[in-house]
């Protein structure tokens, strides 16, 4: 972290968060490759690092790197938005180390202890066995403390400095984000109640509070990278919040079709989740419209120069606008209606949606924020693409889209053979797994995963070295 142009402690802390996020992103892809290989070569690491473990590490690293990068993004933009240094930055730095240490311990326990006896000690110290939020109870409490500290910093800074629209939205959003985590922290013998509250965390994070977070970050990016007008951007942001929460909160119902909950969730879940893609269309239009508008103003001055001050970051922001709509919106809508979901629920189709949605909606914009930090840290006026930027971006995007297509094709035979024809039994499941579409789909998914990982290596190299490149305007 030498040669830093950063004066703000908040921005320095942001770069720490981004660094750990990037490392965990790499870990996510690595364990994803192991899990993908296990579909193709069933004996791969059998009873050493089984699919249950590699897949748990794959999705946990995903969630945690995104949370790290989200915290980093907020610490990055706070001084710009509020005009002051973040309040309580000392505590923020301490919490960063606690968070990083806790994550390291959790990962080591996942890797080397893996499972425990069927009692509360496992839930407290090894894993909770609940997809996405497997972290043991002690870590849950730790994460809560860290999240509350982060929210406290955000609130204290927002109340002391200039509270812009973006900061106001983030304050409301991040307190909900932290609070919702609490609903996933108790044990019950009743699996229906268990999954009911589990979805409060998962859905109300990724289909509500995280999406609003993305809206805020996109707003910040448009102002800083292309000089979009704050008044316009913030009005869009409030409209997006209206649409995202208006559809996303009750859209939760689409997870309540089959877990023992009453039938009225069919209608509520179908209606509101069908509305969920709308704000994503709005965000897409908004980003492209503002870009065209600002570039048009520049062109009208007779100057043929780009308005974009950070090419790689803006590329990732545009990819976010498109990927969010396609991955979360279209791939989500594919199977959100109960009459379709009866057959697609819990198949490779879900997996296809999961990959493109997490990538399109979140990974993209967070990688964009990492490039913003690289620009700021190296005191660069205009950050241009390097050869590595191009390789990284095209290989990662191509790889993830390729995986999604492969999984979607695999999903069709999973849905039709296993669910529609064979009625979801053990034998029916394996009948579907043996189909050509599924077996070949899994091979393609693995190949595309490798491409994604190579793209990640280019990304890591680019983030570490582009600051020194002579390509940029300083």
């Amino acid at each position, binding site marked *: 972290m030498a040669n830093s142009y950063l004066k703000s402690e908040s921005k320095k802390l942001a770069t720490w968060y981004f660094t750990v996020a990037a490392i965990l992103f790499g870990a996510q892809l690595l364990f994803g490759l192991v899990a993908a290989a296990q579909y193709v070569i069933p004996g791969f690491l059998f009873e050493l690092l089984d699919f249950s473990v590699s897949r748990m590490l794959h999705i946990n690293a995903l969630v945690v790197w995104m949370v790290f990068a989200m915290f980093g993004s907020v610490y990055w933009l706070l001084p710009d938005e509020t005009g002051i240094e973040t309040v309580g930055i000392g505590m923020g730095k301490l919490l960063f180390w606690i968070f990083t240490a806790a994550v390291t311990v959790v990962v080591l326990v996942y890797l080397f202890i893996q499972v*425990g006896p069927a009692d509360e000690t496992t839930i407290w110290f090894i894993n909770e066995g609940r997809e996405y939020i497997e972290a043991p109870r002690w870590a849950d409490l730790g994460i809560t403390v860290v999240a509350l500290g982060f929210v406290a910093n955000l609130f204290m800074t927002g109340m002391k400095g200039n509270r812009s629209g973006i900061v106001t939205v983030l304050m409301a959003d991040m307190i909900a984000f932290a609070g919702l985590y609490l609903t996933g922290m108790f044990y019950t013998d009743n699996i229906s109640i268990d999954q009911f509250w589990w979805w409060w965390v998962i859905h109300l994070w990724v289909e509500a509070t995280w999406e609003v977070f993305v809206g805020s970050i996109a707003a910040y990016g448009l102002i800083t990278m292309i000089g979009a007008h704050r008044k316009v951007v913030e009005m869009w942001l409030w409209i997006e919040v209206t649409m995202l929460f208006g559809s996303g909160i009750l859209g939760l119902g689409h997870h309540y079709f089959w877990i023992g909950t009453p039938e009225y969730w069919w209608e509520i879940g179908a209606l509101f989740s069908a509305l969920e893609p709308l704000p994503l269309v709005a965000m897409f239009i908004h980003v492209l419209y503002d870009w065209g508008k600002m570039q048009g103003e520049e062109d009208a001055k007779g100057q043929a120069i780009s308005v974009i001050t950070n090419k790689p970051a803006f590329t990732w922001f545009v990819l976010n606008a498109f990927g969010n709509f396609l991955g979360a919106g279209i791939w989500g809508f594919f199977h959100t209606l109960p009459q379709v979901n009866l057959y697609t629920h819990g198949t490779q189709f879900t997996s296809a949606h999961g990959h493109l949605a997490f990538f399109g909606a979140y990974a993209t914009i967070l990688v964009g924020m990492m490039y913003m930090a690289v620009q700021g840290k190296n005191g660069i006026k205009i950050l241009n693409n390097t050869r590595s930027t191009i390789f990284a971006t095209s290989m990662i995007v191509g790889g993830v889209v390729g995986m999604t297509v492969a999984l979607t094709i695999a999903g069709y035979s999973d849905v039709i053979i296993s669910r529609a024809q*064979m009625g979801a039994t053990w034998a029916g499941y394996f009948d579907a797994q043996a189909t050509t579409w599924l077996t070949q789909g899994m091979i393609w998914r693995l190949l595309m995963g490798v491409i994604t990982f190579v793209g990640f290596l280019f990304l890591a190299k680019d983030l570490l070295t582009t600051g020194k490149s002579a390509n940029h305007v300083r």
Partner: protein
Amino acid sequence: MAKRSVWSDNRFWQRTAAWITGFASVLLIWLTFDTSAQISMGTDADIQNGVTKRVPAPTVINYKVTYEFNKKRQHEIPVIGGMNAEGTSAFQEKEKFFGRDDWSEAEAAELLRLGKLGSQAKNCMNCHTLLGNGAYYAPDLTKAWLDPAWGPNGSMQAMTGKSTKEEAMAEFLQHPSQYPTHARMMPNLGITAEEAKGLVAFLKHMASIDSNGFPRNFGKMQGAVNGK
């Protein structure tokens, strides 16, 4: 000076966002109260009194459980202890579970607790799906208890050499890699005999939860080969 339109006023959209979010949240909380009451676990008294709960009492393990098409609801529902005239649970026909059909409420609850904790401690959900949620590397377990493969003439029961469904499932869970059905195998997770019993109770209980007809046509395709 012409008045500015409210549609381009940030304060208007800020208030709209607050009201819409507040309204959706209040509605969700209200529905949560209703749903929580409907999915609370039943008691043995409910079963004795013929009261159908969406999530029945743990003592459901003392009864025969099937999955039958219901004309009124137009999908399959779990039927506990045989079917009555309305096509729903009669709570009459018992079925031995590990040699007993008189598990007390406390014993059954303890067994279910062991099984539910086991399902989390062994990380079932990162290969299988439970109620359709989890990973897609292994079969869905929602109605696994009703899978014909574990039944009297089923291949899985025959493979383990046991004479009842529950014993066959428990045997498999303790030594999964001894009974490979496909190249993709379940690993040994150190499941003890007692934990296996609990897990089977958990699976039988889960099969008796009213999941609104998911999965459809479960186990109805007996004899079909490759979907033909």
